[in-house]
């Protein structure tokens, strides 16, 4: 999704209501968020957002100097660095070692990679945001949206299982090192 970020708009300061709404969506989607809310959004922080001109619905949120999350349609999706800090924020799905390189080059997660011996499929609903892990690796390498219920994937492990929206090395990742 984040191939090029050259068309990033200028940052705008998020209003109080904007911040409130953002926290609310976090809380609605991720039960664990309330534990870390104050850590992610410190009281006096400077909270800004950017828009993408190509995908105007996607908004990237920055708290002081850290990129925290982006919004896509109704979803708020954490930046990978936030997931590295707080791995319990997202449900974890694991692909086998062979699938790692494909994820890192931007491919979606296919069902067989989760079902095979090195993979691990945890219960999740279609549309849920999940962390993507690799066999033998400790930290998340990607973030995606379930394209089917985990039960259905188990029953019929074919085709797409998770749409990849953010991964190590993509433009959003690189942005956080600039």
């Amino acid at each position: 999704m984040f191939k090029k970020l050259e068309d990033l708009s200028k940052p705008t300061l998020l209003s109080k209501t904007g911040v409130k709404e953002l926290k609310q969506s976090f809380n609605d989607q991720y039960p664990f968020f309330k534990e870390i809310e104050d850590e992610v959004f410190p009281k006096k922080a400077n909270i800004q957002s950017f828009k993408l001109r190509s995908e105007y619905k996607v908004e990237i949120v920055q708290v002081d100097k850290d990129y925290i999350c982006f919004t896509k349609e109704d979803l708020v999706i954490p930046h990978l660095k936030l997931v590295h800090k707080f791995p319990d924020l997202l449900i974890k799905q694991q692909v086998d070692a062979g699938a790692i390189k494909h994820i890192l080059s931007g491919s979606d997660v296919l069902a067989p990679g989760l079902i095979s011996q090195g993979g691990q499929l945890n219960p999740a609903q279609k549309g849920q945001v999940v962390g993507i892990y690799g066999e033998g690796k400790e930290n998340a390498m990607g973030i995606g949206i379930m394209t089917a219920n985990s039960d259905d994937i188990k029953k019929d492990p074919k085709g797409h299982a998770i749409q990849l929206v953010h991964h190590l090395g993509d433009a959003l990742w690189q942005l956080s090192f600039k």
Partner: protein
Amino acid sequence: MSDSDDDIFKKKKPSKKKIEQQQKQKQPQQVEQQPQQLKQELNQPQQQLNIHKNPKVVIYCKVCTFPVEFCSYSKAPQECKEWLKTSFKDLYANLYPEDLKLEQEKQAAQQQPQQEQQQQQQGQPPEKKKKKKVKVTESEMVYIKVKERNRSKFITTLTGLEKHGLDIKEAQKKISKKFGCGSSINEKGDIELQGDLSAELEEWLPKEYPTIKEDMIAIQEK
């Protein structure tokens, strides 16, 4: 003293008592809640048992920006390796055990004449272990278990620290920091570490915790 003063006095006293009563009532409620919470926690899957509310520190590669465990997928893995070797030696040893072994072997070959090397290989245990044969009881033993997770990845399990009166959580933190490795406490209360840390732990534990003598450490490789 007027009547009114007396009244105030009377009124105040019961109110204090009331507060105390209220507090007393509250306390038992809290106590009741605790076992429930505990039960809930026990029923939850293992994953939820060690929830990390504190931010985890991940070391990112200066060369490729990935968490260092993903460096082998970067465009310049060799450069990544060199950087890690100079910046985080313990982490490097952990992630690339094969490389380290090769290097050590090279060094050993350079330093020792071949004859000496052969003698060691023929299985004469080093002197250190011979002379210190004090009786060690099971109640003092600390076990380091190394298990292969997949190909060159290992998990080291450390058990028995509680026998030496150590706080497992504190020890876990210390070890994690010292060796730059991921760690967790499993459902049995043992410390699990990422990577094969047996040799490092064997050396470090007696130094850090003097009640643990060298003879009390057993390495169980699988």
